[in-house]
């Protein structure tokens, strides 16, 4: 059974650097006839990908090769210019934890807010507050505002919310080291549990050892194209050969 299918995905994105966010300037340059159509850059180039349920896939490649963009397309954050995305099951993104937290609000309130953003119902989140606080070891801070937490605690909270329910598809973007040594171990155990069950996992990381250890399948992305897809050791080998 397949979990994710990408059919001929290409994505052009506007480069922000040359874009003027100024209405006055844009209007003037338009009146002077200097207006140019915004140039677009090809970020993902004809990507075809099938991922089966329960597969663990590591995505590797140099900076700017489109790894995170690919994850964004799969999560539905970005829509491809051409091609189609099919995702079966719910996705839990773990992209830079703590992004959805509101610093002025209490921890409890943030659990509900973040949970709803991830696609859960308020009712479900209210029932889960206790177990999330317990896992994040923040019971004493339940009613404290999030800005009173240390950055490690915030990351712990984000991790605890996003992983409290087993998602069908888990997306990890370089976020496996959360909190202090003890919590790192704890979060590692939780993620390993996902590995044991039928969760489909996608990892983007520059830690090749980690990828080789934990993933079955490897995808090597270069300049928005899939250069290799298959056995993880081979993918890493190809990638390293190309770099050297």
């Amino acid at each position: 059974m397949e979990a994710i299918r990408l059919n001929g995905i290409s994505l052009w994105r506007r480069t922000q650097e040359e874009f003027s966010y100024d209405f006055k300037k844009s209007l003037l340059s338009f009146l002077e006839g200097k207006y140019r159509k915004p140039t677009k850059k090809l970020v993902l180039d004809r990507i075809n990908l099938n991922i089966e349920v329960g597969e663990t896939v590591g995505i590797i490649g140099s900076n700017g090769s489109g790894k995170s963009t690919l994850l964004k397309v799969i999560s539905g954050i970005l829509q491809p210019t051409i091609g189609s995305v099919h995702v079966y099951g719910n996705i839990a993104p773990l992209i830079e934890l703590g992004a959805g937290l509101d610093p002025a609000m209490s921890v409890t309130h943030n659990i509900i807010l973040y949970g709803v953003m991830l696609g859960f119902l308020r009712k479900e989140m209210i029932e889960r507050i206790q177990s999330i606080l317990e896992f994040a070891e923040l019971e004493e801070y339940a009613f404290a505002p999030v800005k009173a937490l240390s950055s490690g605690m915030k990351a712990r909270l984000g991790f605890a919310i996003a992983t409290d329910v087993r998602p069908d598809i888990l997306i990890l973007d370089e976020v496996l080291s959360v909190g202090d040594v003890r919590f790192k171990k704890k979060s590692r155990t939780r993620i390993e549990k996902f590995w044991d069950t039928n969760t489909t996992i996608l990892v983007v990381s520059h830690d090749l050892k980690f990828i080789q250890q934990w993933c079955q399948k490897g995808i090597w992305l270069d300049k928005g194209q899939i250069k290799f897809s298959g056995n993880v050791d081979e993918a890493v080998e190809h990638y390293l050969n190309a770099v050297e």
Partner: protein
Amino acid sequence: MSLSLKNTPNRSQLQRYWELLYVLVENNLKGRYRGSFLGVFWSLLNPLMMTVIYAAVLGTAFASYYDNSIVNYILAAFTGLVTMHFFAASTSQAMRSVVSNGSLLNKISLPISVFPASMITANLFQFVMATLPLLAIMAVIISGNVINSLALLFPLLALTLVSTGTGFILSALYVFFRDIPYFYEVAVYGLRIGTPVFYPADVVPEKIRPFVLLNPLAQIIESIRQITLSGDLPDLSLIWGALLGSVIVCILGWLCFKNLRHQFMDLL
């Protein structure tokens, strides 16, 4: 291009939208008032103060248009100012909502329109809790008829639709042009002067008056005043006029937002 995202089963997109709207509005209101429920009444402070100022400065000059009664002028100015204040506050908050949540939109897949919509809804909640009861009481006392208080819901609906449409347009434009707030400030100022908020429509020269009354906000204010202050039964033609204009603004706003939406993510 097709995108089939079968999210958690049994959960429709509509329900997700509703849940999101609920938590965002709750978050917004809680953030504003730090838990004190009386906080919503702070939203009355601005229109009340402006009413006092206008009454002190212009009350005597305009009293002749209101049966020589300063009280009538105060009531007319107040109804106009609360309407204008709702529009200005909710649209300028909606304007910034998409951009200020840009980093979030880059991390979690969310329906973008929920952010401006939540700003309008939060302001609507405030209005319904603090201002609407005042207007309803005024309507009952002056007309002696409960129908007038109930009829207030129609101009309020029109006001919400106008603000939503404008909020959608502004939030979309702000993604592209970050100096829009500056222009919008000028526009709102012009609207404040150009709409009969603190002066009677009769002082506007007759040649210009039709243009002033074309403005949906002017129609809404006229309708609210007719319902609360005239003592007569609600004038249906004023209500229809207000609703028609507001529906048009709302549809235009949504079309504009919908057509620009796919370009947002590259600029956030």
